[in-house]
């Protein structure tokens, strides 16, 4: 699976925003991850401790905001959630569907600490 390279990308993205904000330490990383994103969050968690060693992200907590996979049925206009496999509308059996959520995979925000600014 590709979670190691994904975790490295996540770290680089978090570090670039942390540096821009003059962070001295990153406390938490808030990630939005959809059910259909093909990313296994347990594996990201597993690699995270390794890739963050010696960086200001070391020890930062990974928070996953998990979004379900929701389909919209064009035949009866109802929305329903699926697990992973694609299934027809449970209400009417319709297969004319569009995915309305579940493909998300982005870094929403980071929580950082800064050196206390001097009051002059």
């Amino acid at each position: 699976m590709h979670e190691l390279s994904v975790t490295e990308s996540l770290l680089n993205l978090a570090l670039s925003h942390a540096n821009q904000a003059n962070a001295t330490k990153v406390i938490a990383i808030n990630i939005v991850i959809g059910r259909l994103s093909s990313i296994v969050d347990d594996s990201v968690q597993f690699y995270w401790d390794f890739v963050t060693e010696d960086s200001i992200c070391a020890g930062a907590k990974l928070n996953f905001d998990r979004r379900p996979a929701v389909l919209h049925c064009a035949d009866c206009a109802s929305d329903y959630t699926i697990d992973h496999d694609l299934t027809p509308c449970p209400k009417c059996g319709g297969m004319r569907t569009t995915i309305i959520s579940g493909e998300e995979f982005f870094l929403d925000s980071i929580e950082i600490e800064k050196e206390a600014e001097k009051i002059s």
Partner: protein
Amino acid sequence: MSAIRVPVVEKIFSTNDKIANQNRQNLTDKKVLAINLMASPGAGKTSFILETIKRLQDQFRIGVIEGDTAPVTIDADKIISAGMPAVQINTGGDCHLDASMMGDGLASLPLEDLDLVIVENVGNLICPAAWDLGTHFNLLVASVPEGDDKPYKYPNIYRGLEILIINKVDLQPYVEFKMDYFRHGVEMLNPGLITFPVSCRTGEGMDAWIEWLSKKITDFKNIV
């Protein structure tokens, strides 16, 4: 000292996507059309590339980037024996190609002399779908013996496609493969997807694909 929340809202693939866009620009500047060809192992990726080259070699120059998880050059060697330039990219065990590997591959191809680049991605239906390489379109080679339930099981890869090839139709009499059920799943995920059922063994269906691709290459050269 208290924690400060810094909003980011940026795709985690953004670094890859930036490099992918550079690759795409580089190809477009040189008027080379590029295809990201994906499939499960054994679906017939290499066979399909060879059959395509065979039918287009008098009209177009075609370069191939072969992605493999191990340092074997079997597939690349086949392309070179067919008279076209090929490079092998070893992903070192990784399950997909990414944009930076693609960039390395492009650097070893004589792009100025080429009309088309085909990238044979690593055989896998999950991971390659997540990584933009910087090609102009995504093509999947599905195959009859894999079964008709694949669109239902691997929705992501089907959603990002511009072209679907259904290979090994010569095997339809021998295996349980309900074409209607298969195409229904595809239609749910990617309505109106351009689809070519073919056989690399018998050549059935290849003419329609070749006609479509030749026009696509010619149009691309005229537009960019």
